[in-house]
């Protein structure tokens, strides 16, 4: 995983709450067995609407998505994270993320930064009046800056550390291999096993 420190790019406003992972990527696209190539699947059904925000020329090439509350609810499909990344998004801003989606994002290197809904609305206003405004997300300082506006964001400390360092979770866990083996030796025999 690549390390994440500071990202600057343009942003797209998504005026929706409860954006579930079926909207981010419909189940039809989950039949693929690869980890890449999902950009065409992102928001597939909404993209049929010419007025959908990602179809508007002023938001072309944006890498930061600014969404309403409860982003990423529903299915655990990590394909949602891959589709957002394949499309070019590096950061999602929302006042609240669903737990599994947020966890999946952290594993894949997509930053989910939590800011209050009034900050979301302020950013929507700035972006909509001037879509070319560069937005800077600084993970070290935990800030979002757009023009003169700046606010702090929340992110889990552990996720932040892993993103800053670009660390692989499995590698970290395997440093505890002896403790895992010791735990296994003491597991009760009544726990089910398959033969």
């Amino acid at each position, binding site marked *: 995983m690549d390390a994440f420190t500071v990202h600057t790019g343009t942003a797209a406003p998504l*005026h*929706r*709450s*409860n954006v*579930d992972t*079926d*909207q981010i990527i*419909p*189940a*039809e696209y*989950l*039949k*693929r*067995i*690869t*980890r890449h190539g999902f950009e065409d699947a992102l928001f597939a*059904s909404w993209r049929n609407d010419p007025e959908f925000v990602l179809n508007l020329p002023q938001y072309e090439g944006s890498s930061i998505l600014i969404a*309403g*509350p*409860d982003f990423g*609810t*529903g*299915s*655990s*499909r*990590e*394909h949602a*994270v891959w589709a957002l990344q394949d499309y070019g998004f590096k950061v999602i801003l929302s006042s*609240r993320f*669903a*737990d*599994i989606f947020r*966890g*999946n994002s952290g*594993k*894949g290197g997509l930053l989910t930064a939590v800011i209050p*809904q009034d900050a979301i609305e302020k950013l929507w206003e700035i972006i909509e009046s001037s879509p070319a405004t560069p937005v800077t997300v600084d993970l070290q300082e935990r800030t979002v800056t757009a023009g003169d506006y700046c606010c702090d964001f929340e992110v*889990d*400390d*552990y996720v932040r550390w892993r993103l800053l360092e670009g660390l692989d*979770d*499995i590698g*970290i*866990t*395997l440093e*505890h291999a002896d*403790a*895992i083996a010791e*735990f*296994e030796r003491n*597991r*009760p*025999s*009544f*726990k*089910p*096993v*398959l*033969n």
Partner: protein
Amino acid sequence: MGRTLAEKVWSDHIIHEGDGLPDLLYIDMHLVHEVTSPQAFDGLRATGRPLRRPDLTIATEDHNIPTVDVDKPIADPVSRIQVETLRKNCEEFGVTLFPLGDLEQGIVHVVGPQMGLTQPGMTIVCGDSHTSTHGAFGALAFGIGTSEVEHVMATQTLPLKPFKTMAINVEGKLPLGVSAKDLILAVIAQIGTGGGQGYVLEYRGEAIKALSMEGRMTICNMSIEAGARAGMIAPDATTIEYIKGKPHAPHGEDWTHALSYWETLVTDPDAKFDKEITIDASSLRPFVTWGTNPGQGLPLDQSVPDPQSFSDPVERKAVENALAYMNLVPGQPLKEIAVDTVFLGSCTNGRIEDLRAAANVIKNRKVARGVRLLVVPGSTRVRIEAEHEGLDQIFLDAGAEWRGAGCSMCLAMNPDKLTPGERSASTSNRNFEGRQGPGGRTHLVSPEVAAATAVRGTLSDPTDLVEV
């Protein structure tokens, strides 16, 4: 101070305490299916890591598979490749797989409990958000993404931040004709789709204790729709009776040891939850969703709400969007909404008790003209049991389609889909836009309401039916 059920199971699985960082937890059982695993197996191959515990890993084919012609090769080539990939991966890494056509095949969350692989006090994960189902046994069970699937394959552990705990106290008795599904839809409508975020829910109280294991699984299954990764119910005599004699239930001395451990798996009287809510079961009625998330629901005897009655602008916008998508008008009585399809099945309501409840309503009646009723058992064993009881014949006589086991129209990855604009009453768990097929409109209901709706052609509960 005392501990909650969730805290007990958590602490019994800690390998390494994180001290502010995540704890490293041992995983007792890893359930695998074709959709969220191929990239994880690829990850193992790319890093040269073995799958640590094939004996604690089990796979089934459910999400993507057809429910007709199950003895023939899968017609959709993309689906077929994914299913064949699972077969090759399980072979290569030594994982037990129940493929299409196997007696044990079915939806992963129906298969685990029926084999006795789901037991109290276990940690259970799966690359599927409805893993919360297994919490009905007092297990800590939750859905994970594909990176975590690979992590569990490689290490049999997960690094996790402790959850907060929330008690859902359901006091009193459910009235006759009100099911576990109605109860959980009412809970989600009350706390919202984000209300459980960061929490493990523990369902408690008289109405929960009175539920069968099937009903408890329906409740825990939909915890994720309230934003909670896991829901739990303390094991009791009902739980033990269900597990006893199942193929993987403990035997002999192990059974005795298991029982004495399971007895400890209750929330201590002096334990404190981070949050508690109380619901009066006796006030509940059959419940249905009108919108595009599971929190947008009302008792079936009410009407489509008016967006103007919502004061929060974000919520009002969400209601306007939902009504536009669902093609509903404010004030329309819910019971006047006509459906095209009724889907009975899924990991929420595809167990034998659900099929019995629906069959009981539809017996000696006919599916309304122009309505399609699709009955999809949760597992092959459920299908066989239902056929043994003659339930298949009741559904067929009514004019329903009787299918093979799988996830089917719950998520429409296989050919069972709604067409654009088509409307369903569905016993599944998600009414998201397009969930059951692009442009499809979904109303979530209980098996009893599904059956009554199939007969009348409009959203209905069994008391709306003419006596036969």
